[in-house]
């Protein structure tokens, strides 16, 4: 029971202030329309800590809450965050949890998950978007992924020093 609380309930409580930061402060550090996604950093953290199943479920919960509060199309962030949580959980290794959370590996996983998240979010929310491959992969997938990964660096350093 205690494990279940740590795996699902606690991450949801932590999610709310992060969502708050995402809406209030993150737009201030946007480069054009490219913004880092703090929610994905949190999602990757829990996916690498508790595994793929937790990552997938948390992704969908984070996504639906984001959709409800953002005013956007309901279900779109849920879809993309579920995929992001699942893909991050793919790198989960029971024996290397600490290593995964405290090294460059974490940043790489954030980059992959964030890129996938941006890509699927675009695919679902666009109606008449110019879906050229370069635009889709580079501008809408990789750039937000790189920015989010860069923002996750202090998070890794904090994890390391906390120890």
């Amino acid at each position: 029971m205690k494990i279940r609380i740590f795996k699902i309930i606690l991450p949801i409580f932590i999610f709310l202030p992060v969502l708050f930061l995402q809406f209030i402060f993150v737009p201030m550090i946007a480069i054009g329309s490219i913004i880092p996604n703090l929610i994905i950093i949190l999602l990757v953290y829990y996916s690498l800590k508790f595994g793929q199943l937790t990552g997938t479920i948390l992704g969908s919960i984070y996504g639906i809450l984001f959709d409800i509060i953002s005013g956007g199309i309901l279900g779109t962030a849920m879809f993309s965050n579920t995929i992001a949580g699942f893909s991050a959980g793919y790198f989960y290794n029971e024996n290397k949890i600490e290593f995964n959370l405290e090294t460059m590996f974490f940043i790489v996983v954030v980059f992959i998950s964030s890129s996938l998240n941006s890509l699927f979010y675009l695919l679902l929310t666009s109606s008449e978007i110019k879906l050229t491959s370069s635009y889709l992969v580079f501008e809408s997938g990789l750039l937000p992924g790189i920015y989010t990964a860069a923002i996750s660096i202090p998070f890794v350093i904090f994890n390391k020093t906390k120890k």
Partner: protein
Amino acid sequence: MSKFVRTFLNSFKEYIVLILLLILSLLIITLNENQKVKNVRLFSLGIFATFNKIVLDISNYFEDTEHIEGLLKNNAQLMLQVNELRDYAYELDELKGQFEFKTKSDYKLISAQIVSRLVSKISGYFIISKGSIDSVEIGLPVITDKGLVGIVTDVSKNYSTIRTLENSLFKVAVRDQRSNVDGVLNWDGKDLQIKNVPTTEDIEVGDRVIVSELSTIIPPAIPVGVISNKESTISGILSNIKVKPFVDVNKIKNVLILKKKKDFELDSLITKVSGGLK
């Protein structure tokens, strides 16, 4: 058999959960227009926006917001009047003296603060600090002193959501103010574009684009932007026009909601037509 099922579920539980959740999210996408779902969203939006508003109020404590709001309103009213006068000037050229000047500049504006924004290339939504209690309604246009920002899409008691120009679902009928060429403006993820305009039409880079009389949602003559580029499609018959908006939606902090005057004649006609189609 049960052992096989159990083994199967254990081995593929991650994939099964993934597929189920993806199907669920796709189902939820189809529920977007459901009234009950809308009510839940408006409730959550209200709670979240209240927190955001408190933070914003703290950060704006030392600003003379009332004075700024007043100036913004004045600027917006002047902008709308100037645009109307510009329209009359073009019409005056055309009619050569048969013009009768009628002043219609009694715009009612509601000022609001952007409480929260979702900055994204495709999903431009803002939450603003005015709601139904301030007589904000769904469908009202949102402007600044420079031009059109978007349209109100959801309204709760104290807050509203607006869909900005930079949202792939936003579409508006516009016209070239100089040549009166009509088109539909939408966001393609990168630029504002008027697609498939015949190349023979008189459109030039630098022309001002305003909301057209054909728009049934947004009242006409609100400035939108200026034509920045014109490129022909492969066939050469049609061209796509790029429009640089007057308002940079990513930089604004305050907006104004325009209480449009109801065009009862047009509305009743639309109701008749849509009723007939049903």
